[in-house]
């Protein structure tokens, strides 16, 4: 029983994540389609449920009952293993993340952020082995592109993480956020260049547009997942979106203050605490306003239910803010509740904003050519990130010497970041000048 006492909470949390995550991913896909529709001035999915709110469930059922096809010449075992590897690595990485001060499955891992990054990088094997096992040229090309891309951008992402870790002085996820609370400033503001590098590298690592070369449908059908269908295909899909959530969470934890509210230590800005309940309440009011316009009675009822859910969430979010105002004696009792609920809200809010930025880029920028992608990675991002680590390190020494902390640390790190950017751009310019002189014009190499 001692065994159970120690392990039941992580076990239940882990099962909850594995059970709920496909649903969350389904709704992320719906949101993506809705945002895409909005940016392209159309409506998006509207048929299943009010405003297409039940579309993910319909899609999931469709994928589950589809025929499962394995090509004749495929390597059966590896074909079976590959999607499982991908999704397993992505789900395992979720275990190291902390959504609030208390909500974390694998609590207080000493190497927390490295665990998340390292385990999620293992998902590449699912892609590579899947592409190889399909025994198809398109798949193999997609897999090769994917591994080349991931290996190239992993370095830049790692160096960007090192920048953030320099400020934090620890690898533990909880302590990283606590360090940002103590400093009173998010590390993303202290090292904007590192945040930018991580942003670009994380898009490349999750194989999303404009870096979605491994699954460029105009060149490779669907890249590494060309031969996969039905449930196996949906596993790849699940892994891709889970990875998006994972990289967004890593960036949130390290650069955007984790579960801290903006300006969490500034007292006169405490009114920001009213933002979460107000936001959910406004969404609820909007749902109520849309209810009479729904065509069918069922859809009206569903819309009412969504509005009710929003108001319930708003009430829960408002209670820890309003109770201390009404009864100051209860303030101390409500504080842990406040930290948990509002921490969760801010974390999810920041992760959503980061993912929204991903989607925005996807619908805005055209796809890179493969040699352009490699050039951007090796000739710009990697030098930039290495120089940035070097200069931020020097800035940290200057900061320690002059006892700078919090916002005043910006005095040292901001010039360092700007200098790193200038040097990297200079290197890029020199490099392009050399390229232009040397090679007249040769056909771009397909995947090298």
């Amino acid at each position, binding site marked *: 029983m001692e*065994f159970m006492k120690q392990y039941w909470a992580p076990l239940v949390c882990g099962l909850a994540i594995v059970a709920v995550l496909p649903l969350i991913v389904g709704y992320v896909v719906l949101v993506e389609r809705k945002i895409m529709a909005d940016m392209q001035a159309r409506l998006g999915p509207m048929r299943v449920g009010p405003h297409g709110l039940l579309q993910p469930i319909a899609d999931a059922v469709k994928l589950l009952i589809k025929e499962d096809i394995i090509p004749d010449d495929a*390597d059966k075992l*590896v074909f079976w*293993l590959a999607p499982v590897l991908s999704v397993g690595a992505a789900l395992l990485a979720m275990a190291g993340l902390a959504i609030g001060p208390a909500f974390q499955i694998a609590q207080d*891992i*000493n*190497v927390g952020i*490295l*665990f998340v*990054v*390292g*385990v999620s*990088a*293992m998902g*590449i*094997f699912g892609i*590579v*082995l899947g592409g*190889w096992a399909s025994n198809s040229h398109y798949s*193999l090309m997609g*897999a*090769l592109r994917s*591994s*080349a891309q*991931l*290996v190239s951008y*992993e370095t830049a992402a790692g160096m960007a993480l090192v920048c953030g870790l320099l400020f934090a002085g620890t*690898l533990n996820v909880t302590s990283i956020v606590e360090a940002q609370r103590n400093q009173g400033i998010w590390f993303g503001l202290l090292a904007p260049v590192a945040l930018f590098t991580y942003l670009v590298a994380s898009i490349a690592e999750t194989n999303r547009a404009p870096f979605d070369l491994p699954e460029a449908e105009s060149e490779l059908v669907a890249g590494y997942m060309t031969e996969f269908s039905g449930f196996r295909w949906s596993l790849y899909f699940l892994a891709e979106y889970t990875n998006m959530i994972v990289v967004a969470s890593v960036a949130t934890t390290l650069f955007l203050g984790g579960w801290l509210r903006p300006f969490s230590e500034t007292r006169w800005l405490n009114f920001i605490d009213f933002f979460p309940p107000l936001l959910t309440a406004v969404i609820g009011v909007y749902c109520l306003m849309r209810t009479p316009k729904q065509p069918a009675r069922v859809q009206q009822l569903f819309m009412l239910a969504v509005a009710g859910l929003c108001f319930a969430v708003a009430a829960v979010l408002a209670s820890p803010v309003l109770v201390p105002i009404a009864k100051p004696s209860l303030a101390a009792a409500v504080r842990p509740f406040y930290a948990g609920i509002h921490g969760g809200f801010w974390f999810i809010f920041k992760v959503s904003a980061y993912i929204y930025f991903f989607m925005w880029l996807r619908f805005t920028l055209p796809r890179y050519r493969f040699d352009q992608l490699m050039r951007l990675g090796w000739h710009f991002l990697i030098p930039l990130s290495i120089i940035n680590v070097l200069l931020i390190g020097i800035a940290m020494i200057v900061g320690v010497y002059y006892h700078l902390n919090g916002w005043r640390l910006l005095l040292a790190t901001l010039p360092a970041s700007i200098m790193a950017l200038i040097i990297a751009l200079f290197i890029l310019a020199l490099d392009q000048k050399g390229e232009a002189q*040397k090679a007249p014009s040769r056909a771009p190499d397909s995947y090298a």
Partner: protein
Amino acid sequence: MLDQAIFYLFAGVAVVSAILTVTRRNAVHSAIFLITALLATAGIFLELRAEFLFIVQIILYVGGIMVLFVFVIMLVNLDVAVRQLQFARQKWVGLLISLALAAQVGLMLWSSRKIPGQGVPVLNAVPADKLPPNSEEVAKSLFSSYLLPFEIASVLLLVAMIGAVVMAKKRT
């Protein structure tokens, strides 16, 4: 009890997949079993509460080196490599050497069992929450007592890197 069970599980997986790595004909299957062996070793590190070694094993060997391995295996023509009979000539020599090695290790373990306090040093078990933070300790020893070897290894790696760049560079 649980610790021992976990250790034997990981150790068994590591040994079996190491054997499968060298016996599989298909290079990609070999690579998969090598990954499994490396992961099992990482599991043993984690079981010893060496969290930093565990994650470095995963990031470096599994996430870095093996990805490149698989990449290269897919780039070269596999069919030729599969048809060729590999490592045939060294079979008996290899067997002899590995038997000698096994005998050596076995002898050491056996002798240390007989005389307590000698042979294999046995460290005292420390409860997990009493251990100093792992990565910090590694960093401290790397940058204080082992600074010179660390720098020499770094220079060696740098030399290898520059050499690779020079060799890969096209002559114009």
